[in-house]
Structure formats: C-alpha cells, structure tokens
C-alpha cells in the first residue's frame, strides 16, 4: 500500500469539503439536532418517571453512540458517492491505485468526519444535558471501536451495493442503520425481542455495546468478555465487507461496469 495514493483519496475529499458548507454542515448538524431532541426527551422522562431511573446516560448515551456509528458509515459512503456523482471511476481506476488504497482513503475520510461529529455530540450532550461518559472509564474505548468498525463495514457494504447495482441504488443505502437498529437494542434490552430476532442480535457487534452500556449504567462492572466478542465480530464484518467490495470490483472490471459507470448504463 502506498501512502501517497491513500493521501490523494483523502485530499480529494478535503478539497471538496473546503469552501463547501453544504458538505461540511451535515457532518455535525444532524447529529447535533438528534442530541438536542433526545436530550429533551430524556429530561422529560426523568421528570415524569417515578422510578428514580436516570434516562440521560441510558437513552441519550445510546443515541449518541448510535449516531456515531451512523456517522462513520455515512462518512465512508459519502466519500464513495463523490466518485459516483462525478463519474470518476474510469479516471481513478486507470491509475496505479489499488482497491486496498482506495478503501483506506474512504475509511480515513470517514474516520475524520465521524470524529468531528463525535466531539460535537460529546460537547453538546455534556454542556446541555450533563451527559458524561467518564463513568464508563476504559470501557469507552472498546465501545467506540466496535461501533467504529461496524460503521466502516456498513459503509463499505453500502459502497459495494451501489457499485454493483448503479447510482440509482443509492436510496437502498441510507436506511441500512435504521434496518439494523431494532436488532441491536439501541433503546431496549435485546431480551424483549422475539427469539429469531435475538439470534440475529447475537451476530451484530453493536448489540454488545448497547447491552454493555445498559449494564454499566445499572451499576455492574464493564462486561469485557462480551465486548471482546463484539470486537471480534466487528473485525470479521470489516474483513467480509472488504472481501465483498473486492469481489464486486472484480465483477465490474470483468463486465466493463467501471468503464461505463453511470445511472443510465448500469442495470
């Protein structure tokens, strides 16, 4: 892998964002709105609830972590879509650029944008609603790592779908986090799900994060063994997503899809 080629992919994204508020604003604007909305909901629930249960860390904390995963995924797919929209595949893939370098560039861009979003969310949630993850201690690192890797895997999978089916398949990508969220128990324990849904939950890495978060909010120690499972699954997801993208890319090279990529020509 050559650093300058990865840097070229990242630089392209930086050039696009520089002086383009319509690209920069969505990085943190929607997550900020989400934090405000859920912050007020949790504050309201705290006033009407009589159980003494603090909804802020359980609910707002979960929303923040879920938004982080979504932001990572969108960071990767948006970087890919810039090449779809500008029909740049022929120019890029006729250079010495390797698929691993291209994906590394997309992921680096996703990391950058999602970290900006994370900082905005953490500051806003702390300043406005007193949410602090300090109580999670060192467990916060694996929490974020699992969500970060899962976001990358979903982003690369989304890019594979669009590369294979064409730009018109873009609308299939945006609802992916919404489709996943009922299974991973963002807002509720997975034990309330029907059996078949729980089976799916167990293979989805974010499940271990949200179950762990709830357990820690309830006062139990960090479930390191469960987090290790989540982390291992997330690594498997990333490897599988990269393998799927590579297979779709090979298909695109075999059929000429890369050379004639546009909404009109891809069936």
């Amino acid at each position, binding site marked *: 892998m050559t650093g*300058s080629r990865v840097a*070229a992919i990242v*630089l*392209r994204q930086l050039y696009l964002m520089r002086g383009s508020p319509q690209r920069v604003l969505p990085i943190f604007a929607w997550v900020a709105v989400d934090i405000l909305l859920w912050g007020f909901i949790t504050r309201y629930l705290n006033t009407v609830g009589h159980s003494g249960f603090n909804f802020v860390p359980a609910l707002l904390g979960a929303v923040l972590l879920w938004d982080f995963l979504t932001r990572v995924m969108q960071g990767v797919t948006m970087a890919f879509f810039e090449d779809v929209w500008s029909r740049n595949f*022929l120019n890029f893939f*006729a250079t*010495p*650029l390797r698929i691993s370098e291209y994906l590394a560039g997309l992921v680096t861009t996703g990391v950058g944008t999602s970290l900006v979003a994370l900082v905005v969310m953490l500051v806003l949630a702390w300043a406005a609603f007193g949410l602090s993850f300090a109580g999670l201690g060192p467990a916060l690192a694996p929490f974020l790592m699992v969500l970060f890797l899962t976001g990358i895997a979903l982003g690369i999978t989304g890019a594979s779908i669009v590369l294979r089916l064409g730009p018109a398949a873009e609308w299939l990508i945006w609802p992916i986090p919404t489709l996943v969220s009922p299974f991973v128990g963002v807002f509720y324990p997975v034990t309330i799900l029907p059996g078949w849904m729980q089976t799916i939950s167990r293979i989805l890495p974010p499940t271990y994060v949200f179950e762990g978060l709830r357990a820690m909010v309830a006062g139990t120690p960090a479930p390191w063994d469960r987090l290790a499972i989540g982390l291992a699954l997330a690594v498997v997801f990333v490897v599988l997503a990269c393998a799927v993208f590579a297979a779709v890319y090979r298909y695109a090279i075999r059929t000429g899809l*890369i050379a004639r990529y546009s909404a009109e020509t891809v069936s």
Partner: protein
Amino acid sequence: MVMAPPHAILSVEGVCKSYGALRAVDGVTFHVAPGEIVGLLGPNGAGKTTTINMILGVLAPTAGRIEIEGIDLAVQRSRALSKTNFAAVYAPLPGNLTVEQNLRVFGMLYGVPRLTERIDELLAAYDLGRFRKAKAGVLSSGEQTRLSLAKAMLNRPRLLLLDEPTASIDPSSARDIRAGIAGFVEAGHCGVLWTSHNMYEVEAVCDRVLFLSRGKILLEGDPKTLPREHGAASLDDLFIQVAHEAVHEAAAMRTEPVAR
C-alpha cells in the same frame, strides 16, 4: 502470431473481449515501440475504446495478454499502470475540483516527484495557468481537453493512450498539442496509442496505423503509403472503404441462412 519486438512499450497478444455471444474484440495483436505513435482507427463500434479500456486495466480481457514495458497487466496491475496515462473525451476530470487540485490529486496517485514544479510546467505548457483556481467543470470543452492532456503528461508516461485527444480543440491549439506530444515522444522515447476520426491528424502524427473493424485488425501500415497500397486516394477514403466493407459484411452475415 507476431512476436513482440524486444523492447516494446506496449505488447497486446491475442486479446479478446466477449459479452456473451458478442465478440467486441477478437484476437487483436499489436505492439507499440519506443518513440512510436500508433494510430488505432476504425468506425464506431469497431472495438477501439474496448481495446483501450483493456490496456488501461479497467476492463478484463476474456483471453490474451497485455504487457506494458514487459510487465504483465493481469499480474502486476499497479506497477504496469504507473507507466501509463491517458486522455479521453469521455472521461473528463472531476468538475468539482479546480484545475490545480485535479492535477495534484492525480499527481499523487501516479507518485509524481516534485509535484508542484511539475504542475506549474504543465499549466504553462497547456495554457491553463489562468484557470489554475477554476473548477474543471466550468471550463469550455477545449479547456477540459487540455486539462485531460496535462493530467495525461503528469507522470511522463512510457505509454500514452489518447482517445480522440483533439476532438474539441480549435485547429491552432490542436496543431500545438500534436507538436507537443510528438516532441515528448521523441525526447522521452515513450510510445503512444492514438485513436482519432480526424484522418488529417492521423496522417500528420502517426508512424503506423491499425484499422480495426468488428473487433479485428483488418489493415496495418504507414498512414502515408497505406491508402495507395489498397487503391484508395487518401486515408479518409480508405477509412470509408473499410467502414463500408464492415457494414456490408455484417449485413451479409445477418441474412445468411442458418446452417442445420
């Protein structure tokens, strides 16, 4: 099979590309030597762009072998492509980047040393200096073509693929560009594969031409003598003759009774 010359920059051996029953390119073999400009000619749908896409590594051949400076494209794709570059009318550079940003991004992809210096040289050579900060998408088609050519020269390629490189350029600029490319080929001993429908240009620039029709090479030779050898008054006439023959052949094949 024609043997590749020992130091061929491009070696295309028995390359085929099929889409189901359709053979877009059918056993094409040719070579480009250092310091040589080879014209790839043929009517629309002859297989020129398919051949170029296979040499660019964005389309896998069904059969055959492509080598760039002796490097097998199928085996060492990245290394082989680092020695090439291309400009094509159908592949404009991203319109949402400026001229300078485009050259910088592609310069980094090709690993160009002293990139800033190289960009300045190319902006001057292709008269793009005043568009340095302009978005590529707002340039006229001729200016975009000049930008594509500047991009194609970034890494001083050993093999340059040009698909109708002067299609939207005024005659004066086109002449300058032809002279510039010819000078680059002579000085750097690179090879060029050049497609064009402008036979005047082909005759002026190319050392050798290949006539492609229905995926096969029909004729090959010096563009200055080839028309006479085949009873045509000019390269233009020869082109029309080849294109008509291809059309008639295709029509005859469609009307032939199916053998049982």
